[in-house]
């Protein structure tokens, strides 16, 4: 069974069709890289998965359960959408850390708020909060930021901020971790540290969807490549298939553009 299946996702903004029948599937422990030029719909697809955009058509299925079906008339309550979102974690291109919280405060916040909904919260408040805090500290150590734990976002470099954001996205143990061009807002010398963290996650078989412009990275880390162009999936395959023997003319042209800029 797939962890994630996206079927026939379509999305339009006004007259523009941004996604046309986009689909892909993901096994547990797999990393999938979505590549394609700007405006191809990659980010919108990721936002649909995280329920930040509502697709006009298609289905999103997680662990065999239909989380979203455009053809059904069911209206989701805010509570249901929140619950659905928790299957996914999202790392933004522009980090979006909360500036008034320290690094560890950013990682802890959602966990602390969510813990309040637990039935045993009142009785075991102290232990629960301690657990959330310890988990946050552990995650920050995993991204190599133990010594920066108590600094505020503006005291961190872009690469460090993005690593905090990754720890924050992991804090609620999502089934699928999504990255929206995680290194595009970084200075070139800072991309390495972030890619290293994502690579380590892939080595630990974290299920991931990575939208990226880093072709070499996609090739190294991903189990599967999805190439998108103008809102459609043009080609899907293993990195070897897509990068070395693209079957589609459009893929070939895109890759050529990227290797000889």
């Amino acid at each position, binding site marked *: 069974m797939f962890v994630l299946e996206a079927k026939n996702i379509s999305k339009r903004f006004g007259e523009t069709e941004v996604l046309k029948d986009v689909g892909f599937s993901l096994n547990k422990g797999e990393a999938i890289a979505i590549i394609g030029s700007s405006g191809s719909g990659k980010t919108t697809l990721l936002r649909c998965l995280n329920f930040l955009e509502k697709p006009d058509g298609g289905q999103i299925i997680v662990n065999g359960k239909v989380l979203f079906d455009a053809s059904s008339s069911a209206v989701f309550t805010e509570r249901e959408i*929140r*619950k659905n979102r928790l299957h996914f974690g999202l790392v933004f291109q522009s980090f979006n850390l909360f500036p008034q919280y320290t690094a560890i405060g950013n990682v802890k916040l959602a966990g602390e*708020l969510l813990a309040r909904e637990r039935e045993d919260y009142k009785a075991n408040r102290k232990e629960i909060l301690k657990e959330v805090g310890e988990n946050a500290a552990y995650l920050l150590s995993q991204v190599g930021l133990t010594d920066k734990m108590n600094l*505020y976002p503006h005291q961190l470099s872009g690469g460090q901020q993005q690593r905090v954001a990754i720890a924050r996205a992991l804090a609620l143990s999502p089934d699928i971790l999504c990255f929206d061009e995680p290194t595009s807002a970084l200075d070139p010398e800072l991309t390495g540290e972030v890619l290293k963290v994502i690579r380590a996650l892939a080595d630990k078989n974290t299920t991931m969807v990575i939208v990226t412009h880093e072709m070499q990275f996609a090739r190294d880390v991903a189990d599967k490549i999805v190439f998108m162009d103008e809102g459609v999936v043009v080609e899907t395959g293993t990195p070897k298939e897509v990068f070395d023997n693209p079957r589609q003319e459009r893929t070939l042209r895109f890759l050529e553009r990227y290797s000889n800029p």
Partner: protein
Amino acid sequence: MFQSVFISLNEGFLETLKLFALTLLGAFPLGLIISFGSMSPFKPLKYFVKFIVWIVRGTPLMLQLLVIYYGPGLILGNNWWDGNSGRFAAAMVAFILNYACYFSEIYRGGIEGVPKGQTEAGMVLGMTKIQIFFRVTLLQVVKRIVPPMGNEIITLVKDTSLARVIAVYEIIWSGQAFIKSSGIIWPLFFTGVYYLIFSGVLTLLLGRLEKKLAFFRV
């Protein structure tokens, strides 16, 4: 002589303080409501609110005081009640409405200035809208609006003197009264010291608030 001037000016200043404090008390929440109106997705409401804000910000506060005090009597034949309290009430209405409109624009700027990514980050972390507002957005809005709010608050200190135009007994009135009664003008000039000290204290307080919020950047 000095003593009677002081007593009289202090009394006037107490009225000034009352005008100042009550205006803030009314205009802070009313401004927030107006700002929500001006950001409303419901177009008629939005344009209605923007129209009101345009009128209020586009005309002198002194004129608004006069219209609000004399208008009801002239147009509706229904005067404000007699005496000081009626004039004070009319001044309150004018000040609160005027400052609420200015505040609303400051709130709007503060709220719209928080990047959408902040809300979205909260959403993907499963936070509720209320949690996002109170735990993520609010403090960032406060930090953004403290400097422009400070400006308006300092301006209000001095704008209270406009209430003089409908004979509210604030400190300018008290000082001016000595010209007629005793033929001396220095009490009127001396009122400036009160304004300076009061705005000085406010400047210090606002500076401290800004410093308190300096631990993070937006």
